[in-house]
């Protein structure tokens, strides 16, 4: 823990290779700032990524970094975390890397609750391969591989995470500095798998796909910033209420009894995930429980310390001696 580090200390000499104007730049800045703010150190931090524009991330952070193969970062990060539970292990992935080819590893990292921080840059497109639709692309997305519009119903990252048994789901917008740092600090503090969906603007292949709620000019009415224990208010005098007859969330006037955000409530979290307008941001769901890599050692009698030598084991149960 080294409080004097600044965001600059987490920058590398490498030239950043994203398209000019890509949302990834803002995310990079926010992460570097958060690392400094939480007092992380480069040597005890590792960024593991798959393949994609998002996955270029590790090259630009002064820490240990591994740009692995497509979709496998959570599995590799699990092994790294088991090898060295003291590391801060961050996984950076994209909507294709994480939810298309990598879905199975995300599922199992989440249900095991491995102590890693997963940042999914969701731009609803395959950027690096030049713009095909992705598993989060909306129905009807026209792309080189879906010239007539895509058929597939997109997967909801939030519903997927909770369905997989995840204990932490948060959301932030690439360029929203405050929202990003609020979420990233919570991620760093969380035990177990923390998962963040970051709405990231791909200006080349999917420009402004999130503009309806990310546009600053109308943010107050389109964004619901959640804070645990605080009422769900947004816009001028609007709020969210649970409707027990329809089992859904209604937008109501602030004075009607508005829901107070309880981030441990999975029922409400799932309704918030599906809320179309306003879009729920911040920590939608959080239930800290002991993580897998911690338990892996804690629950093992010798914590895998070498307390005996192979020499003691060679003979087995029934040896015999020949003179």
């Amino acid at each position: 823990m080294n409080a004097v580090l600044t965001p600059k200390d987490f920058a590398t000499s490498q030239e950043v290779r994203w398209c000019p104007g890509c949302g990834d730049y803002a995310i990079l800045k926010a992460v570097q700032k958060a690392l400094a703010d939480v007092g992380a150190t480069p040597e005890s931090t590792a960024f593991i990524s798959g393949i994609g524009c998002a996955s270029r991330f590790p090259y630009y952070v002064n820490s240990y970094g591994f740009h692995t193969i497509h979709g496998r970062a959570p599995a590799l990060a699990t092994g790294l975390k088991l090898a060295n539970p003291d590391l801060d292990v961050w996984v950076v992935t994209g909507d294709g890397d994480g939810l298309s080819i990598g879905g199975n590893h995300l599922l199992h990292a989440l249900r095991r609750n491995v102590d890693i921080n997963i940042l999914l840059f969701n731009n609803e497109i395959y950027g690096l391969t030049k713009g095909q639709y992705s598993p989060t692309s909306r129905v009807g997305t026209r792309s080189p591989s879906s010239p007539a519009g895509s058929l597939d119903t997109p997967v909801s990252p939030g519903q997927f995470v909770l369905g997989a048994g995840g204990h932490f789901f948060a959301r932030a917008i690439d360029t929203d500095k405050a929202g990003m740092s609020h979420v990233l600090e919570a991620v760093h503090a969380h035990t177990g798998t923390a998962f963040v969906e970051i709405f990231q603007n791909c200006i080349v292949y999917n420009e402004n796909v999130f503009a309806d709620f990310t546009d600053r000019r109308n943010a107050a009415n389109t964004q619901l910033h959640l804070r645990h224990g605080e009422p769900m208010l947004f816009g001028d005098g609007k709020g969210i209420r649970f409707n027990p007859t329809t089992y859904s969330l209604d937008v109501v006037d602030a004075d009607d009894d508005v829901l107070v955000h309880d981030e441990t409530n999975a029922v409400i979290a799932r309704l918030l995930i599906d809320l179309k307008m306003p879009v729920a941001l911040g920590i939608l769901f959080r239930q800290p429980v002991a993580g897998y890599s911690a338990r892996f050692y804690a629950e093992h009698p010798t914590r895998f310390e070498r307390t005996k030598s192979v020499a003691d084991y060679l003979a087995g149960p029934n040896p015999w001696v020949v003179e």
Partner: protein
Amino acid sequence: MSKNKEIESVVVRFAGDSGDGIQLMGSQFAVSTALAGRDFATFPDYPAEIRAPTGTLFGVSAYQINLGEGPITTAGDAPDVLVAFNPAALKVSLPLLHPGSLIILNNDGFTARNLAKAGYDTDPRDDDSLANFQVVSADIGRLNLEAVKAYGLSKSEGDQCKNFWTLGLLLWMFNRKLEPVESVLAHKLRNKPVLRDADIAALRAGHAYGETAELSASVRRYHLHSPDWPPGTYRSITGAEALALGVAAAGELADRKVLYASYPITPASPLLHHLARLGELGVATFQAEDEIAAVCAAIGAAYGGMIGVTGSSGPGIALKTEAIGLAVSAELPLVIVNWQRGGPSTGLPTKTEQSDLYQAVYGRNGDTPLPVVAAATTGDCFDMAIEATRIALRHMTPVILLADGYLSNAADPWRLPEFDRYAKITSRDLPDADDGRPAQVHAFDRDPATWGRPWITPGMPGLMHRIGGLEKDIATGHISYDPANHQAMTELRAAKVESVADYIPPQTIELGPDSGDILVLGWGSTYGPIYQAALRTGVSFTQLRYINPLPKNLASLLARFGTVLVPEMNNGQLVTVLRDRLGVDPVSMTKVSGQPFLIRELVERIQALKSEAAA
């Protein structure tokens, strides 16, 4: 009695339903044989089904053991004694026997229903189909139930004991003490006292049955000499057990913890099961969601400074190949164990084969060479696990260790190695973080002798760097699309694997003269049968343990022989490698039946070659 002149040994085969406890009976007989200080080799041969329907031909589970004075290196071609619990077991085993062999039958298994299931129209005990054999049929089922009735077990529970009744009879035939088996039982079933006592009662009853003269007339008892083994402590060990100990040993020799990440698959699972119990030796296991996750977790662990090991069989290794390429590119150490089984695809999961050699040597995209080694015997699995790890750490590369289903399950006596004599396992020294060079350069500052880079792991101050699967600059380790650099890196990766040859032992002759007409060159688990065949035919024999790269002296060694015969349990894959690497053209002998070579088959082929050579 064994027909083979050179060796005083007996081959016993137990056969019955999967539910009859054949494998347990066989392994207990092996333990007793071991403790009696006899040489032996075993071959468990069971169906793919967990508990195939009773009485069916495909459901027959068998356990064959060859025991005696030795050297014994295979479970034997033909049983001298067959114990058959039902008609199906008899029918399946009969073709293996030679005339005069002893057959012990369980009358109670020969019901009309079972005879029908086995496709017998008439009871073979009544017609003359067993005329050439010496047959002893006993009401094993009934006698066993009497022996255990005191313990108030249900009929089916009581019936479960009949394998021990039969074992007792066999122990009598081989003049064995009951105590060792009883103490094993006492320990195994300490939490099930009733079952324990019943099993022991059955064991004694079977022994008594032999004793009380009812049999001694018809059955000869075996007085086998004990082999003149080098002095030392011995144990019975399977390849899976030996490889597990080898992995733990590698960790100890490298003074690092081990993570074995795997996904269950036949016949690789036993390694996972054994390693899961070696936590005290610094071995952790991780059962991943699939083979891709397993290899990636192992790579992650290696990146983190543990010895990363993963294992599977062919179909699972296929899934791992993309990630193995990443380990090659990232220059990380990794050991991949392939317990080969019958292919293609799901193939014959419980049968043995050597058909993943192509996959190991050539089976990756890109120019992606890596070292490949193979274990020759159950005990050799211990040493080759250490060797594979040694190479992986010295050269910072993934290494494939080939074993197979036969080695995984077979048990042999093993003389305990002098572990304190094993050399430590090391990798390139770590750089001085403060010598002014960028960490990225440190990370790829390779040893020109081994091309191994320093194993810098997250957590080390001042050495932060980035690695990945994109081509990187040969000097700085940064991403590079430079054409000349890619050429240089491709050559470096090839040179690294070639450099392994500077560190491995030269190929030596196992048996026979070191030049002559015929050399039999094997690899992997064919060691046993080839050894015997060479012994009996007097030709020379050598077994490859290092397949990529090949030992430097192999070419000259092969050149000293007129003909080189290469028997393989595949369609000629090592021959391809030899043609490719040495430009030689050996005689290929292939067997792809899911069964190990029979000594007889090899002897015949060698004899044929000899007469050709003579002619």
